[in-house]
C-alpha cells in the first residue's frame, strides 16, 4: 500500500472533485481516493504492484488539472 498526495493548482468547482474522484477511482490498483476541494489536493491509496504515481498523475492532467507536486509514502 502506498499513500499518494497530489497538490493541484487550485480547484475551482466542487464538481471537479466528482470528476477526479470518479476518474482516479476507476483505475486498477486504486484502493481509495479523496479529492480535497479547499486544499486542492488529491489523496489516494494505491497498490504499488498494480499502478504508480505517474499513471494517476496522467489521469489528473488529462482531466485538465495541473499537478504541482506529488508526495508518496509507504503505508
Amino acid at each position: 500500500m502506498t499513500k499518494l498526495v497530489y497538490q493541484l493548482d487550485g480547484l475551482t468547482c466542487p464538481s471537479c472533485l466528482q470528476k477526479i474522484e470518479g476518474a482516479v477511482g476507476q483505475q486498477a490498483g486504486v484502493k481509495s481516493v479523496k479529492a480535497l476541494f479547499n486544499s486542492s489536493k488529491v489523496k489516494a491509496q494505491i497498490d504499488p504492484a498494480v499502478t504508480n504515481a505517474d499513471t494517476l498523475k496522467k489521469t489528473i492532467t488529462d482531466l485538465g488539472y495541473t499537478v504541482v507536486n506529488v508526495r508518496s509514502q509507504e503505508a
Partner: protein
Amino acid sequence: MHVIQTHKQEAMIGGGVLTALGLVFSQAWLLVLASLVAGLPIAVNAWEALRYKQISIELLVTIALVGAVLIGEPVESAVVSFLFLFGDWLEQRSLAKTRSAIQGLAAAAPKTARLVDGVTVPVGQLAVGDQVRVLAGETVPADGKVIGGQANIVEAAITGEPDAKRKQAGATVYSGTQVSDGTVDIEVEKTGYNTVYQQIIDLIEDAQDAQSPVATFIQKFARWYTPLVLVIALLVGLVSQDVRLAITILVLGCPGALVIGAPVSNVVGLGFGAKHGILIKGGDVATKLDQIDTVMFDKTGTLTQGKISVTTAQYWTPDEANVAALVAAVEQATAHPLGQALVAYLQPQTTPVVEDVKVTRGVGVQAQVAGHTVSVGNQKILKQPQTPEQRAAIQAIVSGGASLVLATVDDKLVVAYGLRDQLRPDTPAMLADLSTNGKKTIVLSGDSQAAVEHMMTDLPLSQTRGGLLPADKVSAIKAAQAHGEKVMFVGDGINDGPALAQADVGVAMGSGMDVAIDTADVILTSSRLTNLGVLFDLAKRMNVNIKQNLVIAIGTVALLLSGLLVGLVDMASGMLFHEISILLVIANALRLRHTPRKWQNLTAIKAHQPQTANNEGK
C-alpha cells in the same frame, strides 16, 4: 488537448473580444467564432471527463452551446461561453483569497537550512541528528533542541503569540518559528512532514475539507444533480419540442453557489482561527460548538498556569539545610510535578546518593539516603503521631487551599511544605464571559476538593469537583451527556486524552501538541484562555455564514426557475445570475476574515467587560 486546457484565460479574452465585435457590428459569423474560441476549452474538459464516464458541468454547457448555435442563437452561445470562462477565472481568483491563511502558513516554511559547518542544504535533505545554525531574521528549518547560543524566537506560526521567547541550550524550538535576534545552533529531532508546524498545516488542510453534515449532504446531492439536470433537460426538450427551453435548463441547472456555499465558509472560518492560534478540526466541529451548553475544565495547567511554587515551608529540625538536601535528593528521583517544584525551590547544592527508591501511588516516595530512611509525600507517609504544633501547621496549609507535602527522616516528621499553583490572568474574564453566554462551567480536578475550592473561590463556576482520577473525569462527562447536555472539555492534552475524546468537543490547550492533534477536536496553540470565547464566537459566525450562503444559493435557483417559467430568463442572463450568485457566496464567506470588534485586541489579555449580555448563546 492539454494545450487548450491550459489556455483557458486566452480563450476567455479572445471569446470576449470577438463577442463584443460581433455585437457591435451585428456579424453573426463573429459570434459563432467567439463561441468556438471560448467554447473549445469547455468542450475539451467535458470530453476528457466523459472519457472517464463523468458527467461534468462542462458537458451541460457544451451541449447548450452547440444547441444554441444550431438553432441560430449565436449571441447567446457567445455570451454564455464567455461568461462561463470569466466566472471560472473570477472564482479561481476569489477562492485563492479564501485559502490565503493556509497558503501563508505553508509559504512561511523555509526552503533551505544552514548546517553548523556553514554548508547550506535544502530542507528536504535534513536528517535527524544534523546540527543547523539559525541567525537573526531567519526561520527555524526543523524541530529540535538548542545545543548552543541563545536567541529570542517568535513562535507566532505555532502559537499565534506575537511576543518573542528567550531560548537557550536545552530548549525546544519548532520549525516555522522565527529568530528575532541572536543565533542558535540546533540539533534536529524532527524534519519535514513530521514537524509540529507541518502537522498543523496538514491538520488545518484536512479540517477545511472535513465538512459539516449539511455540506456533506449537499456534495452527495451534487453528484446526482448534474446527470439529473441533463435528463430533465432532455425530457423537457422531447415533450415540449422546444430546444431553446431545454438548453436554457441545461445552463440554469449548473450547481454552483449551492455546492460551494458551505465549504467556502468553512475554509475562511477555519483559516481565521488558525491565524489566531485556534485549530478547529473541521466544519462539523463548528456545528457542534454551537450546541455546547456545559464546559468542563481541567484545573492544573488549564485554568492555572501549571507553574507550582512553594508558599509555605515549616521545619521541625535544627538542621534545615541537611533536611532540604535529603528531600531534594529523594524528589529528584521522581517525575511528580510537586516534586519538581520542590526541587526547584530547594536548589540543592549537594546531591547525596539515593538508594532503594520506592514510589507508592497516591502516597509518596521512600528512599535510603546517607544512612537515613527518607519519606516524602502526603499525610499517609506519617507513622507516628504529630505534636499539636505540627497538626496546626498541617491544618493551616490544607485549609489555605495549598497542596501539602510532608517529609519524614527515620519516621520522624521534619518538614511540611505548602505548594500552590497560580490562576492564569485571564481565567476570571474567560469564565465570566462563558457564564454570561449562559454556559455551565465545571472544574474537574485531581487535586483535593479543599484545594480546588480554595483556588476557585469567587470565580463564576457552576460546580467544582476535586479528587478525580482521569477515569472519573470521563464518567463525569458521560453523566452530563446522559442528561442531554452537550459537553465541551478543556484540558492539557497530555493527561486528559480520554476526557477529550469523550466530550462532544474536546479542546486541548498549549502543551502536548502531538497527543492533542489525535484526540482533541480543537487545539488552542497559545495558552491564552480568551481564545475560548473567540472560538465560540467564530463557530457561531461560521454557522450563520453557511446559512446565509444556502439562502443565497437556493434563492438564486428559485429566482431563475420562476424567471424561466414566466419567460424572463434566457440562457445568457441565466448564466450571468448563476455566476453572480457564486461570487456572492464567496464574498459573504470572506467576511469571516475580519476580526469582530469584540476581539479586536486579540493579542492583549483584556479585563472582562460584561457587555456581552445580548449575545444569544445557549
